């Protein structure tokens, strides 16, 4: 059996209490856990061995969806992905969110995994998502227990891949999240949660609990999410493209967001391609031009499934497909 390492389990009733418990322990000593679908496999592989787990399952008022398309909506961080995917308000007005949630793994996992956990999942790499013995046999790597990066041996940083399916969508929707610490809370753009570093990939403080995600009013913004993976039924993304646009009455693009995931250690916004679209109508030419620019910041390395050259090519294809979907959805 692949067993969890021993830990003490604390069950706070509020996010602030949870943050205090985490702050009371040194880094690495204590971690929060929600659904555990990302953390427990990692703990079984000894990528994390916290002595204390702060379980969020009893935190009150941390689940559910509230608000409206006119005022914006708030989703509790502990809402399961199944609940997100099945929420009618989200299905009707924010289909990109329910699409992305429904594309995470399989239904049985989505019954357990939460949205807050999804936004905080560990970065992934073929040299890292392996058993302790496997990792030991290659003398480990920089992300855990070792010195060098096997993907980019001369690199000073780890290039493990940001793999959340929902993060790019929330960034494309200009969403924010509430982080609760021991002494209070703050609200930050989801985009600013992420860092281009496979090890320190989250910019929040380690004791901060993500309690809510806030999505602005729809305001005519149309969004979509496309995901590439080997097995459509269960795999993590090896490329994800979230795209969103707002258009004037005559169809001229006023705002555009194109966010790629699984191409770097953080979601990547293709701002040059976004700028190309603004002021234009979403024609086939404009889409091709934007796609030819958007895939450039993607730096897939040889550390996930399928070849990096193919994934880079597909970034261009998927951006064009996503934009075409938005073109067809013209109101």
């Amino acid at each position, binding site marked *: 059996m*692949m067993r969890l390492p*021993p830990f003490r*389990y604390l069950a706070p009733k509020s996010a602030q209490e949870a943050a205090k418990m985490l702050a009371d322990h040194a880094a690495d000593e204590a971690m929060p856990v929600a659904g555990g679908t990302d953390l427990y*496999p990692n703990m*079984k592989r000894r990528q994390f061995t916290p002595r204390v787990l702060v*379980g969020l399952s009893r935190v009150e008022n941390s689940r559910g969806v509230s608000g409206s398309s006119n005022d914006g909506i708030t989703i509790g961080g502990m809402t399961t992905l199944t609940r997100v995917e099945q929420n009618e308000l989200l299905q009707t007005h924010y289909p990109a969110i329910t699409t992305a949630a429904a594309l995470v793994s*399989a239904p049985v996992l989505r019954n*357990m995994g939460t949205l807050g956990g999804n936004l905080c999942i560990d970065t992934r790499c073929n040299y890292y998502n392996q058993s302790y013995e496997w990792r030991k046999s290659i003398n480990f790597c920089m992300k855990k227990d070792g010195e060098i990066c096997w993907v980019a041996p001369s690199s000073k940083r780890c290039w493990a891949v940001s793999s959340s399916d929902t993060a790019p969508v929330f960034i494309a929707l200009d969403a924010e999240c509430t982080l609760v610490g021991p002494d209070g809370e703050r609200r930050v753009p989801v985009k600013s949660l992420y860092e281009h570093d496979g090890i320190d990939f989250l910019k929040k403080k380690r004791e901060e609990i993500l309690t809510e995600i806030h999505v602005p009013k729809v305001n005519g913004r149309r969004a979509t999410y496309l995901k590439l993976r080997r097995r459509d039924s*269960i795999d993590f993304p090896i490329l994800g493209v979230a795209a969103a646009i707002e258009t004037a009455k005559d169809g001229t693009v006023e705002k555009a967001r194109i966010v790629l995931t699984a191409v770097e250690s953080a979601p990547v916004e293709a701002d040059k391609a976004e700028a190309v679209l603004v002021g234009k109508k979403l024609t086939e030419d404009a889409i091709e031009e934007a796609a030819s620019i958007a895939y450039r910041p993607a730096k897939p390395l040889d550390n996930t499934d399928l070849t990096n050259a193919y994934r880079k090519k597909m970034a261009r294809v998927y951006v064009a497909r996503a934009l075409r979907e938005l073109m067809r959805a013209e109101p």
Partner: protein
Amino acid sequence: MAEKQHLHLHVNGEPVDVVAPIHNTLLEVLRENLRLTGTKHGCELGECGTCTVLVDGEPVLSCLALPIELQDAEILTVEGLTEDGKAHPLQIAFAETGAAQCGYCTPGILMAAKSLLEKNPSPARREIEEALAGNLCRCTGYIQILQAIERAAAGDVGKPISV
């Protein structure tokens, strides 16, 4: 340092008391403490679905669940499928269509299928496929499994099989 905990669980309709280390998963407690070895362990990493049990009617992966969080919940394992010693229609349908070969994936798939049929008594094939997306089978090629679930849903258990 393995802290043991007194756990009060509800398994297959009965209250059970267990003393187990907190870090033991539901899968471990079911198999090792309660000797309910019908629930199988495969990958133990959330990838294969063979450890699927129902928690308040919803399929979850017991290899990634902590019993301490489930003390208020109703846990159903494959052992709880039979009623008065009689096999569940899904179990009979699996036997009839040959949906189990080595049988390793079967307990997990039966539980996922039971949950599906309770919510959606006559699912389309696509809906069955989606509900079972997290349950891998290395033997059958899935066709007989899908047929068995359709057979159970249609109430055709016991009728001759048309090939």
